[in-house]
């Protein structure tokens, strides 16, 4: 029942830099109020996709509509309602925390007085009020990230783009940012997220798109994807030199698939498997845990990378 037009509607995107294809036949639909995550290894084309939406990389082929308007005609107007938190820290080191927000607001033609009020609200929301007159160099990594997020919200955007919003942060700082993003989500803001923290994606995203080498390899709602492509449970067994001979036969009748890498056996279970419960008696350090996005990601991208290295 999708009657509304999607916030982002891109199709057939292609881009090559110096004959090296970075984005290949890529489609992207982001519906209003949803959080979509682009998941992929470094260099998969996540940031390039974002830059295409912002008109900073011009696709060789394909078309992009944002808010129902073609970006090649209405870019300035479209960007008026987009907020971006980029991966690289590009806060203005010549300005203080508060000035960063006020000057940034001026690029959106927000009147000075309104800008100042909004800036103060945002600093409060991100627990940065005490830092407002501080220069950027004096902020910690987590504080800088929060300020980048605050800056992305200064124009009250309908769409926010978060490119690796918690990269390089300690767990406390990361959780604080997730909390804030969840509040924004609850308020109905549409979010396009890139990340390679699975926990982040699993917590925030309604839909994930796994991309590798510029191509979409999987797309769907995280839990469903995990169940379908990985299973419900994962059993990990480290190889203590005994080998895994005969183990697969023992699990006959279970809906199980196997994968061995880095001297570790992964058993992905799609249903109940009483035999598997007894593996702990034969092997040491057996771990049984629910399947997660990381398993999915590694199954679909990890292996291929290893093959590439050979």
């Amino acid at each position, binding site marked *: 029942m999708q009657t509304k037009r999607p916030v982002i509607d891109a199709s057939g995107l292609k881009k090559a*830099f110096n004959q090296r294809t970075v984005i290949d036949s890529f489609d992207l639909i982001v519906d209003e109020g949803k959080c979509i995550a682009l998941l992929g290894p470094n260099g998969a084309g996540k940031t390039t996709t974002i*830059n295409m939406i*912002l*008109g*900073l*990389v*011009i696709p060789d082929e394909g078309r992009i509509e944002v808010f129902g308007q073609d970006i*090649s005609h209405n*870019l*300035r*107007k479209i*960007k*008026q309602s*987009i907020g*971006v938190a*980029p991966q*690289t*820290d*590009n*806060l*203005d*080191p*010549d*300005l203080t925390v508060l*000035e960063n927000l006020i*000057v*940034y607001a*001026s*690029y*959106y*033609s927000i009147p000075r007085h309104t800008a100042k009020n909004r800036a103060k609200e945002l600093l409060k929301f991100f627990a940065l009020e005490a830092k407002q007159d501080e220069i950027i160099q004096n902020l910690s990594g987590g504080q800088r990230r929060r300020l980048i997020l605050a800056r992305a919200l200064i*124009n009250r955007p309908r769409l926010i783009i978060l490119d690796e919003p918690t990269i390089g942060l300690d767990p406390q700082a990361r959780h604080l940012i997730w909390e804030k993003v969840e509040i924004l989500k609850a308020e109905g803001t549409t979010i396009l997220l890139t990340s390679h923290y699975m926990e982040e994606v699993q917590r925030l995203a309604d839909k994930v798109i796994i991309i590798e080498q510029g191509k979409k390899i999987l797309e769907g709602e995280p839990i469903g994807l995990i169940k379908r492509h990985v299973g419900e449970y994962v059993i990990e067994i480290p190889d203590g030199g005994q080998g895994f001979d005969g183990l697969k036969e023992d699990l006959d009748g279970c809906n199980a698939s196997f994968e061995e890498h880095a001297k570790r056996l992964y058993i992905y279970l799609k249903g109940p498997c009483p035999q598997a419960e007894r593996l702990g008696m034969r092997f040491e350090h057996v771990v049984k845990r629910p399947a997660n996005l990381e398993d999915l990601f590694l199954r679909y991208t990890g292996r291929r990378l290893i093959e590439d290295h050979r």
Partner: protein
Amino acid sequence: MIKTVSLLFTRVWLRNFWVWKKHVRASLIGNLGQPFLFLIAMGYGLGRNVPEINGLSYLQFIAPGLVASSVMYSAAFEATYGSYTRLATQKTFDAILMTPVSVYDLAMGEIIWGATKGLISGLIMLGAIPLFGIVPSPWTPLLIPILFLEGITFSSLGMIMTAKAPNYEFFNYFTSLLITPLFLFSGIFFPIESLGHIPRMIVNYLPLASPVELSRALCYGYLNWVTWERLFILLAYAVLTSVCASLLVRKRLIR
């Protein structure tokens, strides 16, 4: 894509102005030191032993040219070291381009900012000239738009270098191969008319030669048809270099 320049270029200008206000003093002294020292050393020192040129003492002869050269130095310096820092080191341009500000707004804002800094230096030099016993003519206020156009030319030339620069060292080419020769050979220190036919033709079309001649003509109030020719050359330089700089900045930032 956004093909036009909008009024958003003023926001880029204002951002730079805001930052400049914080460090006015250091910035002014940095840019004005050199022309002042030249005026004193050459005008007072060397000038005592140099005969009059076209009825002007040597100090009087070189002073208006040094006004023009201070514009060149400030504008060129800002559009290279200043703009390149914002482009590459601080990533300020990347941050700006995520907003509705287009790459042409950005380039225009930066160029006009460089020209503004040039103009500020030029005006301070001009204001200081009476201290050396030179009384400027009533035409002198007309010099303001001329110095601004000169600023546009040199900040655009600087932006062209910035758009092409892989690192700061790259600007050494610009300074040693363009700015310094222009400073020495654009008729600030000797009259162009005294050169042979061919060198004179070349020097006449150097981008600093026109502002130097215009500055001298307006300071001492001798205007003639050559003034118009000079103005035309200056205008052509300003338009050509700024268009070229904008296109190259786009090429660097939009892939």
